[in-house]
C-alpha cells in the first residue's frame, strides 16, 4: 500500500513503519510534493453526472486508494481491506444503476422531503444591512433543517441503508455521538429511521458520556426500533467499538458511516450522497438570481454537511467556500473543536487528516456547545481543500453560537441547530466585508428544537 512509503516521525520518537491510528506526521515544506496537490480524485461536480460516473466505472476495475492529495487513504487492519474494497465496488455499481438511482430519488423526495428550499432570509439580511447604512449581502438559507429527522444526515443514511439491502445484509451497525460528527445523535436517529423504513435491524453504538448528555436521542432510537449499545467514553470510542463490531461480523453486518471521515470509500460515499444538497443549491440559485453564490458558508464538525454543499462549487473559482468550526471556550483554552485551525496532520479512524492531538499523538477531547461539532478529526477531503487554499475556515465560540441561535430565532422564526448556529455566528464578521448585493448561501444543516434546553440553560453574559 502507498502508505507504507511514508516515514512516521513524531517530535520525540521514531516509530516503526506500522500502520495504526494516532500517528502524528510532521511535514516540513520540503516534504510536501507539489504534484500531490493536484485536484486528484475529483469527478466533475457539475450536473454532468454521467461523466463523473464514467470515471467511477473505470474505478470499478481496480479499487482506488481514496486519497485527496496526501489525505484520506485506508489506514485499517488487513481484515477490513477486502470489505472496504467490496463496498467500493458496490458503491460504484449503484452510482451507475438507474433503478437504484430512481428508488433513491423517490425516497429522497417522498420520504425525506427533498428538495429542501433555498430561502431568502429577508429580516436577517435587513439586520446586517441596517448595521452598514443599508448596504450588505443578500442572505439565503439552504433549509436542511426541513429534511425528515431534522438534519442533512438522512440523505446519507437512506442511501447507505439501500446499499446494505442491495448487498443482502439485514443488519446495520453505526456509531453516533450525543452528536459528535453526527449532530446530537442525529446520525443514530437517521440511521434508525432508515433501517425501520427498509426493515433492517439496527445497532447503534453510543458513548455513555453522550448518552447522559442527550438521553432523548437514545429514546428516539429505541422508539425507532434500534438497539443502542453503550460504550465507555464518547463518540470516538463508540466509533472504534462499532468498527470492531463490524470487523467481528464481516459479511453479516453493514457499517453505516455517518460522516465523511473514516477509511476509503466512506468519505467519498458520504460526500457523494450529501452532494445532492449542493446540486439543488446550484439549480435554485440559478432560478432565483440567475447566477452562483458569492460565498457558501457551512459549519464544520466532521464535515459532511459542508462537503455536501461545497462539493458542487469546488470548481467555481468565484464561489468562496467558508467553513466554520467550533472554537468552544476559545481557541487558546484548549477546550474547542477547531480541527482545521488548531490541529495537525495524523491518522485517525482509518484516514489521514487534520486532527486534534497532543504532543504524544494522543487524541485530545474536543469541546463545543454544539455537540455535533465535537469530533477531534475532520473529513480528509476538507483537509485537502484547506491545504490547497480552496476553502477558508474560521471558528465561532460557544457564546457566539448561542447568540446566533437566538438571533435567527427572533429574526426569522427558525431555530437552527447549535451546530449550524456556528455558521450563522460567522455572518457577524462576514457581512460587513461583503459588497452590497453579494449573495451568501448559508447551510442550515439541522433544526434546533433539540437544543432549546441547552440555550435555555446557557448563562447569558
Amino acid at each position, binding site marked *: 500500500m502507498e502508505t507504507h512509503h511514508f516515514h512516521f516521525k513524531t517530535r520525540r520518537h521514531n516509530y516503526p513503519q506500522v500502520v495504526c491510528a494516532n500517528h502524528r506526521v510532521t511535514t516540513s515544506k520540503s516534504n510536501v510534493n507539489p504534484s500531490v496537490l493536484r485536484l486528484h480524485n475529483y469527478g466533475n461536480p457539475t450536473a454532468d453526472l454521467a461523466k463523473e460516473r464514467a470515471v467511477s466505472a473505470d474505478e470499478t476495475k481496480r479499487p482506488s486508494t481514496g486519497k485527496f492529495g496526501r489525505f484520506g487513504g485506508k489506514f485499517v487492519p488487513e481484515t477490513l481491506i477486502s470489505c472496504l474494497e467490496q463496498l467500493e465496488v458496490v458503491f460504484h455499481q449503484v452510482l451507475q444503476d438507474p433503478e437504484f438511482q430512481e428508488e433513491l430519488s423517490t425516497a429522497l423526495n417522498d420520504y425525506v*422531503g427533498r428538495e429542501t428550499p433555498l430561502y431568502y432570509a429577508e429580516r436577517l439580511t435587513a439586520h446586517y444591512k441596517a448595521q452598514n447604512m443599508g448596504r450588505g449581502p443578500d442572505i439565503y438559507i439552504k433549509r436542511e433543517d426541513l429534511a425528515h429527522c431534522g438534519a442533512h444526515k438522512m440523505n446519507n443514511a437512506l442511501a447507505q441503508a439501500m446499499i446494505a439491502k442491495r448487498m443482502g445484509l439485514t443488519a446495520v451497525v453505526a456509531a453516533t455521538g450525543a452528536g459528535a460528527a453526527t449532530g446530537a445523535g442525529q446520525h443514530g436517529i437517521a440511521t434508525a429511521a432508515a433501517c425501520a423504513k427498509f426493515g433492517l435491524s439496527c445497532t447503534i453504538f453510543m458513548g455513555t458520556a453522550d448518552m447522559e448528555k442527550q438521553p432523548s436521542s437514545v429514546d428516539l432510537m429505541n422508539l425507532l426500533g434500534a438497539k443502542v449499545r453503550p460504550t465507555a467514553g464518547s463518540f470516538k470510542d463508540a466509533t472504534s467499538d462499532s468498527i470492531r463490531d463490524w470487523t467481528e461480523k464481516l459479511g453479516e453486518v453493514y457499517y453505516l458511516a455517518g460522516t465523511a471521515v473514516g477509511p476509503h470509500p466512506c468519505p467519498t460515499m458520504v460526500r457523494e450522497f450529501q452532494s445532492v444538497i449542493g446540486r439543488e443549491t446550484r439549480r435554485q440559485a440559478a432560478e432565483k438570481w440567475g447566477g452562483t453564490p458569492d460565498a457558501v458558508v457551512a459549519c464544520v464538525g466532521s464535515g459532511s454537511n459542508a462537503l455536501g454543499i461545497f462539493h458542487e462549487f469546488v470548481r467555481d473559482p468565484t464561489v468562496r467556500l467558508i467553513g466554520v468550526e467550533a472554537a468552544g471556550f476559545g481557541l487558546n483554552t484548549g477546550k474547542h473543536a477547531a480541527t482545521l485551525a488548531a490541529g495537525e496532520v495524523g491518522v485517525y479512524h482509518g484516514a489521514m487528516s487534520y486532527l486534534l492531538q497532543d504532543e504524544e499523538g494522543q487524541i485530545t477531547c474536543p469541546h463545543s456547545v454544539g455537540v455535533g461539532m465535537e469530533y477531534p478529526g475532520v473529513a480528509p477531503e476538507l483537509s485537502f481543500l484547506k491545504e490547497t487554499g480552496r476553502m477558508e475556515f474560521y471558528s465561532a465560540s460557544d457564546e457566539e453560537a448561542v447568540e446566533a441561535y437566538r438571533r435567527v430565532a427572533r429574526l426569522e422564526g427558525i431555530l437552527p441547530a447549535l451546530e449550524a448556529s456556528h455558521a450563522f455566528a460567522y455572518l457577524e464578521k462576514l457581512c460587513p466585508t461583503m459588497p452590497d448585493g453579494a449573495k451568501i448561501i448559508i447551510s442550515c444543516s439541522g433544526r434546533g*428544537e433539540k437544543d432549546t434546553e441547552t440555550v435555555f440553560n446557557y448563562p447569558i453574559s
Partner: protein
Amino acid sequence: MAIAAAAAATSPTTARTTATLSPPPPISSSSSYSSAQLNFGLPKSTARPRTTAGLSISCTMTRDAAAAVAVTEKDDSDPALWSRPDAFGRFGKFGGKYVPETLMYALTELESAFNSIRNDPDFQAELGGILKDYVGRETPLYFAERLTDHYRRPNGEGPHIYLKREDLNHTGAHKINNAIGQVLLAKRLGKKRIIAETGAGQHGVATATVCARFGLECIIYMGAQDMERQALNVFRMRLLGAEVRGVHSGTATLKDATSEAIRDWVTNVESTHYILGSVAGPHPYPMMVREFHKVIGEETRRQAMEKWGGKPDVLVACVGGGSNAMGLFEDFVKDKDVRLIGVEAAGFGLDSGKHAATLTKGEVGVLHGAMSYLLQDDDGQIIEPHSISAGLDYPGVGPEHSFLKDKGRAEYYCVTDEEALEAFKRVSRLEGIIPALETSHALAYLEKLCPTLPDGTKVVLNCSGRGDKDVQTAIKYLKL
C-alpha cells in the same frame, strides 16, 4: 364566489323557529365579562343570538333532533350545492357569529379582507412563495410500503396506504399553513399586534414563529397548567420573541386561554388580530382557516393523479378542532366517491367520561362564538375533555365537521389513548416516521379500517405532525 351564491340560495327567514325557554339576557357590548358569559356555553335548550333589524335568526336545540321545528335550508344531497358557509357563516344550523357586539365589526372587516385576498394574485403569489421557501411545501405524498404490507391480508390483498407528510413542514405540523396566511392577512389589515391561544404550545409556537418572520408583536395566552407541562414550548415561544401570558381562571387550560384571548381581542380590536388555531370560533374563522389549509387537499389531488392516475378512495385524519382534517377533506367534499373519515380521541374510553369525542358523545351548543357539537353537562357547562394528546384535547369541534357529520358526508370514529400509543410505536418501527400523538389517532384507526377495504383501495392519511414532542410521554406509557 361561493359567498354571494350562498346568500342567494339560502333564504334567511327559514331559520326562524321558536325559543322554548326564556332566553338569558342579551349579550351587551360592555367590556367587562365574567368568564361564564364569555364561554358562551349557553343552557342547552336554547340560544338567543343577536338579532339585526328585520332579520331574526334563532335556533332550537333539543335533545331530540326530530323535534327541531324547521331545518335551516332546503335539504340537498349534492355536496357541490351546499353553502359552506352561507352569508351568515353557517353550515346548515352550525357555525354563525355568537359574539359580543364589539367584535362584530372586526369579524366583518376580517371577512371582507379575506374575500379581497382570495382572488388577489399578488397576495396569493406572496403566500405561495412563503409556503414554498419558508414552510417547505409542497409536502410529499408518501407511499408507506411497510405499513401497507402490515395490513396486507393472508391472501395478499389489502389497501394501499399513503401518508400526506404535513409533519415535514417547518415547525413540524400543519398549523403553520394557517398561521402564515393569517399573519399576511393581518399585515394587509395594518395590524401590528397578534394574539393567539395555545394548549400544549404547537399553535403558540407556530404563531410566534410567523410573527418573528414578519416582525409583529406577539402575545400568546396559555393555561397556567399547560405552561407547567410544556415549559420548553414556553421558552421556545419566548425565544421567538413572543410574550406568553398565563391564564389562571377556570381549569387553567386551553378553553380558558381561548376565552382570555377573546377578551383581549374585544379590548384591543383596532390594533390586534387574533390568530385562531383551528376551524372553530365565529365566522369567518372556520372558513378562513379551512381555506388556508386546503392546500393540503389540493396538493393531494395532484399528487394522487401523478402517482396512480386517480383520486384517493378514502381520506383519514385526526380531529381535535378539525383544521388538518378540513384541510385534507375540503378539496374532495364534492367528490361523493371519496370517503371522508375523521378520528377523534376516546381518551380512557367513551364510557369513562374522560375523552374528547365531541362528535360521538357531544350535543349541540355554542362555544367560542360558534354553534357546533360540544361536550357539555346537563347544566350546559363545558366538560373538561381528556386525551393523551394535547391537540385533540378540545371540548368542541369545528362547525363544518358537525355539518358534514349530520349530512352523512363524513364519518367520525374515535380511538383510545392506548390504541393511539400503539399506533405511535407501530409507525415509528415500520416506517421510521414518528407521528404526533394526535396523528397517531388517525393511524390507529387503520387497524379497524383496513380489514374492511377491498384490494387496492387508495387510502390517504394526513400525517398532521411529527412526534418528537411526544416521545417522552410515549416512552413513559410504552415502557420501551
